[in-house]
């Protein structure tokens, strides 16, 4: 710009300032698109919060009881969240018990042992499992898993709607999630670590379980937490297979293993309650309508908590190799 002489009109000076309304409009549109995601979050928090507030302002409901009572019976005016949380957490824990060993071992095999041909066979299978809609898994739970459990363990022990069937099928559903997230973490471990292990005379098992897995632990743990969050938010399998009755209980009175933690009886989960309530005739501003938002908000914070825990795990415990 220093060479600019007063008698020559330089093109840039007039072009940079040129108004481009079309360009501006497009920029504004693109910005709006980006902002919609923020609006979605605000919308979720605002609506869930507003309706929950209405729920807690109702005379029949108290915030204290909501978080301490162990009976959920809207018809009788009991609104304690714990029976529904019990259902959700119980199913998720069974799902993790099924999915973690299978998913982790599958990931270790795919990343450390499998030849390219074996990988090319198994990876698409896992991807197909991810793509199957959850309502089909729900059908599977009800027409295959439940009858199977009942014939294996006895139909007097296993109810038609039960937590175990739902938990196992949710477990199958999150296996691909765990295996693909863990595999990513395992593959990110540099080969030099493996070579060092072999040079010390370690076997493949020792290299895998004592070097690679510990090195990838933060990524694996983060993946497991994400899978747990997915299981907590899972809806259709839970609604179809584990029944529509909350498992109300009273500590001290009900037997812990025989009833409260019995996997072969039904227990409605939070998502199950929301779906069942919403599929009936639901009038606005009724206590039922407001209650699903209060439960939705609780669920939202549970999954949000798990997801941010996962991100924090990655950040805090990640081993950085070069």
């Amino acid at each position, binding site marked *: 710009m220093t060479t600019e002489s007063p008698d020559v009109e330089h093109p840039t000076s007039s072009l940079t300032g040129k108004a481009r309304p079309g360009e501006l409009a497009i920029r504004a549109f693109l910005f709006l698109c980006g902002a919609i995601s923020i609006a979605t*979050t605000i919308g979720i928090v605002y609506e869930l919060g507003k309706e929950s507030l209405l729920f807690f302002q109702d005379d029949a409901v108290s915030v204290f009881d909501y978080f301490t009572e162990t009976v959920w019976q809207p018809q009788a005016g009991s609104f304690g969240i714990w029976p529904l949380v019990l259902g959700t957490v119980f199913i998720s824990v069974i799902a993790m018990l099924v999915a973690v060993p299978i998913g982790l071992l*599958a990931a270790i095999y795919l990343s450390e042992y499998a030849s390219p041909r074996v990988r090319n066979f198994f990876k698409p299978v896992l991807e197909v499992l991810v793509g199957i809609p959850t309502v089909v898994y729900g059908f599977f739970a009800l027409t295959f898993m439940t009858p199977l459990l009942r014939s294996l363990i006895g139909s007097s022990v296993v109810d038609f709607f039960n937590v175990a069937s739902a938990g196992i099928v949710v477990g199958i559903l999150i296996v691909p999630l765990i295996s693909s997230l863990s595999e990513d973490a395992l593959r990110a471990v540099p080969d030099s670590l493996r070579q060092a292990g072999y040079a010390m005379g370690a076997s493949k098992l020792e290299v895998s379980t004592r070097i690679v897995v510990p090195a990838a632990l933060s990524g694996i743990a983060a993946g497991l937490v994400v899978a747990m969050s997915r299981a907590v938010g899972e809806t259709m399998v839970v609604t179809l297979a584990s029944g529509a009755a909350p498992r109300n209980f009273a500590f001290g009175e009900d037997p812990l293993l025989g009833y409260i933690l019995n996997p072969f009886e039904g227990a409605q989960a939070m998502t199950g309650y*929301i779906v069942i309530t919403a599929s009936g005739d639901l009038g606005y501003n009724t206590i039922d309508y407001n209650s699903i938002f209060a439960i939705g908000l609780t669920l939202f914070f549970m999954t949000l908590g798990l997801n941010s825990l996962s991100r924090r795990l990655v950040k805090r415990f990640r081993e950085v190799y070069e």
Partner: protein
Amino acid sequence: MSVGAPEREPQVQRDYFPDDEEYKGFLAGRTRRARLFQFWALLALTTAVLALATLLYTIINDSFGLVAVVNERDPEDIVADLGYDPETVSLGEIEYDEMVGLLEESVSSGVGRRLEREQRFYEDRLVFESDETWIEICSSDEAPTGCTAGPRDSANVLALVQERVVVPDIIAAYELVPSILDPEGFEDEVAAGFESGRFGDYTPDQAQIEWRAWFSLTFLRSPASSIPEIAGIRTAILGSAWLVLITIGFAVPVGVGAAIYLVEFAKPNRFTNIIQTNINNLAGVPSIIYGMLGLAILVRVLEPITSGSLFGYSGADNGRTVLSAGITLGLLTLPVVIISAQEALKAVPDSLRAAGMALGATRWQTVRSQILPIAFPGILTGTILSVARAIGETAPLILVGAASFITVDPSGPFSKFTALPIQIFQWTSFPQVEFQHLAAAASIALLLLLLTLNAAAVILRNRYSRRAQ
């Protein structure tokens, strides 16, 4: 070092090359454990395949098989009564007028009038209603759907004939594999059922044992029905098709726009950071929460828009329309679409951006004519895959109020609707065994739809990436 080294040498040698029995046993144990572990890991992976195989087996096994059916009027007799040869002509092949005639003679006038008010049989004349009452009810405030909708088609009337004239009743059904391996077993079971009085008033000679494909072309073409024998998924397929259109129409422009903004325009400041974190957070929100958002905002607050009453459309009486559901699914897929479009845009080398700028193009001109064409195949694939995921979602649709029972095809964005996953959910939750077979058949249809979308993604990607080179 130098002083002590010679004395220790022999000991070191023995430690370096152990060959006693204890060591060999230890080595064998290590090898065995390693093998065992590899076996278990492979077994875990095989479990995944086994799970998929079992799931598909369950669905297919339930979609075909032997049934015992009792008809009020045998379709062959009906066709013969009309003067056709029942050997060559099936009930579906008779004339439209003849089907309506069958209805006229079998259905009470009250039911007939109700059917006509729901949807009329002929454009130019009425069958059950008189002209005066028709004008009267159509000019009233609560005019039924038959006043505005077009006439029924032959598939629709055939379903009515099945439902009202033939009235089939499936009293027992068998799954595919036992039907093939042990057909006599089914006959015995039916006979035993008659003996125990389980089938009520029916007599054994009324029952016909025949093969039934629950998943068939008729099943795909028939509208929904509360009678499982004739129920189909035509309404649900059309509902899902509308959802695909609206979801794509919303999520693609907005998602790709947001990705372009974040990758090409946004400055790396705090606000951009917030948007990015927010998108990652949204991707982890359970789908049912999106359903609640759709219910509270789209169905309730924006009811004038989503029911179409703002635009003078009066067909929907609330916001529980296919438009609300489509946008809800669009919001649900948005984070995934944005993330995959961002990946595609980031994969375009920076040199192209620099080249565009060097030629004097503005940022948008560079994006439009340089970056987008190259990133297009990647964006497209990512988008279709995430939309395919959304189409299988059930919970958000239940929340925004997809009607479980609808027999009229959706005709526009403001229609009430049902969708394939909703239909599967409904049928699965019914206790009668016939509905279980219907749910299995509908699952096949849904999986085929998803397969088609996925295949389309792959084909489009291949075609465009070849053209780009």
